[in-house]
């Protein structure tokens, strides 16, 4: 299995930079997810690795081989497209065999591989149908099977779940995770859905505005977001960001909110300038509690079953999302007390760079 190395890779479209001097190392057998909003360059980066976009600067290596000058077919990669890209006039069997026939694989070897891939994805009964006769979920399985039969060094997935309904998306996500465990092949998966990224990835690469914001394990990204953008993009509901003033309290930051609430964080003051700051608090660290020190008014209550999200307003009018138990008596308009776990808070400086508890 091969890893992938991107060195100072860049790409421009008509004078507009979409990827700027990006470097990244992906280990063999790793499942890496490129996560970011629309237009951040994640799909372009994937297509550059596949050879579907030219590289304007830098180098791409798959394993030991430099590939950025090679045509797509010679890079040893297989790709699953967002809209499946199955050949409509060919049967499923021919769709899967097409790539192997083009490189002169023996007919019995092709038949064996096609049968094996079809069996593993439970599409054996569809092999003689055409893509137009299949449902969206079945087409997606065929697209994955078509990638598997090539036995590539690297799998590339370009938002493959975005055309599936919610239930099928969850099921296919699970199957992809199992597929990765079974094959052990290096995989790169592009998505704008943070849940897909968190559940599938060994490592997430968060991209924004043509560059990498953070690379890390899902929990790294969630617990220690490098920037304000990463903190807001990952996690549901979105992290609470409140302006406050930081001061030194025994080596760690004490943040005073606009309503006067004082929060003793665990963020070291080292390198932090006292004064204006932004504090980031995830909803699970802002609990509704009878003995809570901070008063707020509930505006909207969202009951999700296993937990309740309460959108509240602090005394100064700042909005905040708090969490309560699944069975909650809070109603819109109630005055509630909040128990804020300030030790789990993040601070962001004026440039949006995150600071966390040591």
């Amino acid at each position: 299995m091969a890893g992938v190395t991107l060195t100072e890779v860049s790409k421009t479209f008509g004078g507009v930079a979409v990827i700027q001097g990006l470097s990244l190392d992906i280990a063999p057998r790793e499942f890496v997810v490129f996560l970011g909003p629309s237009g951040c360059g994640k799909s372009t980066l994937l297509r550059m690795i596949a050879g579907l976009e030219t590289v304007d600067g830098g180098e791409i290596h798959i394993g030991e081989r430099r590939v950025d000058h090679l045509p797509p077919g010679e890079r040893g990669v297989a790709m699953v497209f967002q809209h499946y890209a199955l050949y409509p006039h060919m049967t499923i069997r021919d769709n899967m065999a097409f790539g192997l026939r083009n490189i002169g694989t023996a007919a019995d070897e092709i038949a064996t591989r096609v049968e094996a891939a079809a069996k593993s994805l439970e599409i054996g009964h569809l092999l003689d149908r055409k893509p137009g006769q299949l449902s969206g979920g079945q087409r997606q399985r065929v697209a994955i099977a078509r990638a598997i039969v090539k036995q590539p060094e690297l799998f590339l997935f370009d938002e493959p779940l975005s055309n599936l309904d919610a239930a099928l998306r969850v099921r296919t996500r699970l199957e992809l995770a199992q597929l990765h465990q079974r094959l052990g092949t290096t995989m790169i998966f592009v998505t704008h859905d943070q849940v897909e990224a968190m559940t599938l990835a060994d490592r997430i690469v968060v991209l924004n505005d043509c560059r990498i914001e953070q690379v890390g394990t899902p929990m790294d990204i969630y617990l220690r977001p490098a920037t304000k953008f990463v903190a807001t993009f990952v996690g549901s509901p979105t992290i609470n960001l409140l302006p406050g003033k930081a001061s030194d309290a025994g080596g760690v930051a004490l943040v005073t909110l606009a309503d006067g609430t004082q929060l003793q964080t665990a963020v070291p003051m080292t390198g932090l300038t006292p004064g204006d700051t932004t504090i980031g608090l995830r909803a699970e660290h802002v609990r509704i509690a009878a003995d809570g020190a901070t008063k707020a008014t509930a505006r909207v209550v969202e009951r999700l079953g296993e937990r309740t999200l309460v959108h509240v307003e602090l005394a100064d009018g700042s909005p905040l999302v708090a969490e309560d138990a699944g069975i909650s008596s809070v109603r819109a308009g109630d005055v509630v007390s909040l128990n804020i776990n300030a030790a789990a808070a993040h601070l962001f400086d004026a440039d949006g760079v995150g600071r966390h508890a040591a």
Partner: protein
Amino acid sequence: MATARASKHDWPNALFVLPYLVVFVAMIVVPLGMGMWLSTTKGDLFGVEANVGLSNFTRLFGDPIFLETVKNTFYFVLLTVPALTLIGLGLALVLNTPARWATVLRTIFFASTVLSVTVVTLVWRLVFLPDGGLLAVISEALGRTPIAFLNNPDLAMPAIAITTIWWCIGLPMVLFLAALQQVPRELYEAAALDNAGRWTTLRRITLPAISRTFVLVVIIEIILQFQLFGQPQLMTLGGPNNATRPIVLFIYETGWRQWELGYAAAAAQVLFAMILIAAMAQYLVASRKGAQ
């Protein structure tokens, strides 16, 4: 019950198609019927003299000049339709790119289509003229004797076919371009990742994707080229020795020179049947292939 109730109340909807239906019946169905009726009569512009049944048709199939025109028309269709289809497809494949040079060339290749048949034939007469024509000048420059294309029974029809291909190439090219631009780019990307070379991509991805347009172009061109008239009328007058006389020219001369309207109408019915059979056969073959 529901169907009966729906049809009872839905008849005002038919009013929406009525304007077109009136025009269709008046301009297509009635003339078609009149033509069929005329083909069973003997008469001129001043009126029908007698009803002669199918004798016009029996006379036609014993008329060596008519049979020659049928042969000429088939020969012309054979010369032009495959060439128009393949050259149109080739041009579309080459020019299916957003580059500026392709836009310019697309316009140039389509430009000939907007010219009238008189202009086109005039231009090509100047090309084929044995005395001072373009080809003659080139032949002389190469030290060869100029060929009188339009006066040679073997070369006159190919010359008219070349003129027609030059004139008509715009339509198939544009139809193929439209079809090519409908093929999803992802299919080509998947093919590139599947190691498909240019020829494989053309044969296995592009051509199957545009097969419906291929059939459409062939049917349209069969219908158009069976109706050959202006080019031989203006370039050769059907000569030399009837070598370029097509069915429509025969119909025109029989009807408007010899005033045998019934006989001309019978020839028109034969042409109508030929076009219908050719187009239907092509359609059936293509749809059977598609179903497989």
